């Protein structure tokens, strides 16, 4: 049976304890715990909807679904359809704004 979402295997608990958390992971945890990640997410969503990016992506999905037939499509397929186009078509202003806010956070949460 085809799974509609491909998930990576859950990492083993024993393995995890031997490694030290990377910088990335530490910052990630800080982002989440402070609630900043959620706020950034909402900001990005809002900006992308305003500029029509979200509608473009939905149109891409609909076209793909119409072509393949709506019973032959998985979420994974759609993710693979959208991701390359999506990354390339984010407006520069939106990207700059978000990067700025992330950098601010990194500086404020200076380790």
């Amino acid at each position, binding site marked *: 049976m085809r799974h509609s979402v491909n998930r990576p295997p859950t990492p083993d608990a024993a393995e995890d304890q031997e490694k030290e958390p990377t910088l990335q992971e530490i910052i990630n945890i800080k982002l989440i715990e402070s609630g900043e990640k959620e706020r950034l997410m909402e900001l990005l969503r809002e900006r992308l909807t305003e500029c029509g990016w979200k509608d473009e992506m939905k149109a891409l*999905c609909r076209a793909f679904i119409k072509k393949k037939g709506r019973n032959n499509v998985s979420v994974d397929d759609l993710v693979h359809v959208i991701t390359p186009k999506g990354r390339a078509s984010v407006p520069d202003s939106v990207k700059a704004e978000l990067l700025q806010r992330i950098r601010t956070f990194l500086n404020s949460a200076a380790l």
Partner: protein
Amino acid sequence: MSASREDNTSPDAQLSSHFFGDLLDSIVVDIASECHRIAKLGLDRNLEDEEEELRLSTQARVRAADPSNSGETNSKYVVDIFGQTHPPVANEIFDCMNCGRSIMAGRFAPHLEKCMGKGRKARLKAARSSTAAQNRYSRGSPASTYSPYSNSTSTNRLSNGSTGVAGEELSNGTSEEP
């Protein structure tokens, strides 16, 4: 950790880009999941309507191209592209403007033929009425104008012995010959 901002490949910039990409990926998965749900549940009416139309039109095309359809006995009630059937003879009823009778639409042309004079009987009827009018006028005068033209009417030629208007033949049947 005070990396300079101008350096694009600084760990700082890389990190920011990484997190930005992370956020973007989450949003992409959300959009994909939403579209997937709408498609599977058939909530996207446009998609459905187009599929339905496509299906119906291919069906109709198959039916039209199928040669066996035209020979069937029920071809009188063939369904057209809008799904309507029409009876073989138009059956709306109205009044003829010439004679005033109630006529069925599908029988109107033949009726008009008879009614207005294209048919055989109608033509004779009209001709008879016109000769009757001529006869009425001719009885008054002694028909001297008609004698050289023996074909026109039959009232001048009386061969049986009844008193003819011309009076040249004797009633006995004997005629004097020089």
